[in-house]
């Protein structure tokens, strides 16, 4: 491991529809840390997460990955980052297994048993080959969360990942997040519920400037 921070944001600003969402936002994320982005609706949480994942271009500020500017990292960053947004990309006409198969096909080579195993860990044992349109919203969300078990990514960016899943699912997800951090990974997440206590947990509040 190198001695740089995993992710460093310098002076990020974002303006949408003539409204300043955040300005001069700087933070550092180390390996093993969990960062919760907090703020009221419309404070720019999703926008910030999309910016960090590289989906949205930054107009001001700079992002550093392992101490290098993001523009020079390219594929290295993409293969080490997993982004899960409001919209999960789950196809309802495909089964959870097919969804996971095709999702992983452009990322890493895995055997079918590993995919099945991930789906089982995600609480979809027995539903691997049921089309997603006959599953509940929570089960569809779990089909997307199965990616977390599969991916070797160092950084997880989870936007409202707790939506629609039941209490047991929330507890399990919190455990995975804790285990991820304990294994040296990092997680950035937004959620309105207050997660359990992790050892290296930090908050980032948006929307105070209004």
């Amino acid at each position, binding site marked *: 491991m190198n001695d740089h921070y995993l992710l460093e944001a310098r002076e990020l600003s974002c303006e949408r529809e003539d409204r300043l969402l955040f300005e001069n936002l700087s933070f550092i994320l180390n390996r093993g840390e969990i960062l919760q982005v907090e703020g009221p609706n419309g404070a720019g949480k999703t926008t910030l997460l999309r910016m960090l*994942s*590289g*989906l*949205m*271009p930054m107009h001001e500020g700079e992002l550093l990955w392992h101490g290098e500017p993001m523009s020079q990292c390219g*594929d290295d960053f*993409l*293969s080490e*980052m997993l*982004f899960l*947004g*409001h*919209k*999960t*990309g*789950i*196809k*309802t*006409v*495909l089964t959870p297994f*097919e969804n996971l*198969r*095709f*999702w992983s*096909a*452009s*990322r*890493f*080579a*895995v055997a079918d048993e590993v995919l099945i195993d991930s789906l089982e860990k995600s609480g979809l044992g027995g539903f691997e080959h049921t*089309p997603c349109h006959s599953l509940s919203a929570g089960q569809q969300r779990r089909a997307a969360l199965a990616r977390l078990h599969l991916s*070797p990514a160092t950084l997880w960016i989870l936007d409202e990942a707790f939506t629609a899943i039941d209490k047991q699912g929330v507890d399990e997800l919190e455990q995975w997040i804790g285990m991820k951090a304990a*294994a*040296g*990974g990092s997680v950035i997440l937004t959620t309105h519920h207050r997660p359990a206590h992790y050892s290296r947990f930090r908050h980032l509040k948006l929307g105070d400037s209004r």
Partner: protein
Amino acid sequence: MTEFNGLQKPGLRQSFFAAIKRDLLLAFRRRQDLANPMVFFVIVVSLFPLGVSPDKSFLATSAAGVVWVAALLATLLSLDGMFRADYEDGALEQMVLSSQPLFILVLAKIIAHWVVTGIPLILLSPVLSIMLHLDQAVMGVLFLTLLIGTPVLSLIGAIGAALTVGLRVGGVLISLLILPFYIPVLIFGTGAVKAAESGMSFEAYLSIQGAILMLALVLSPFAAAAALKISVAN
């Protein structure tokens, strides 16, 4: 993190074929969408004898043009759906964020689109040209022009679909953006059949169509991938 060390990045070819397979499977599971362009194609072509003239000589001379215009419109109709579903359910975001180059995945989607809309139109065209009394001798030429021309329609159309996927009024805008670029394909497609009908050499037309296909094949996946990145950013 030793538990993850076994995971390798798949080859480009592997990801490419998986992406084609995914789109074909999606199309196959939504069979009613699959039939739309075909039904439209058949309806438009069969309205000409009814609406204009059932006269054999009129139909024979206009057959190539009618089939080509109908194929073009049927493709145009299907373009809006090329990226729309993936955009709305977030699959496009995951595509942009995958570690494979986006243009490879876009090319896979374009090929799948052609297989699902282009190939059925090509296969239907001999039946429709018999209905329109097209000279049997030039039917093969029409078939060839469609074979070379319809991939171009999917390739160029992908750029328009990618640019407008983030907009609510995409459908009309695609037509306005893309139609000017379809016109050369149409002209050389029908030109080849006309030349063959009058006994002249038609190979030059096919060559030009082939050149357009190569140009589109090389350039449009990059253009469409760049357009998708912009659409996803908003």
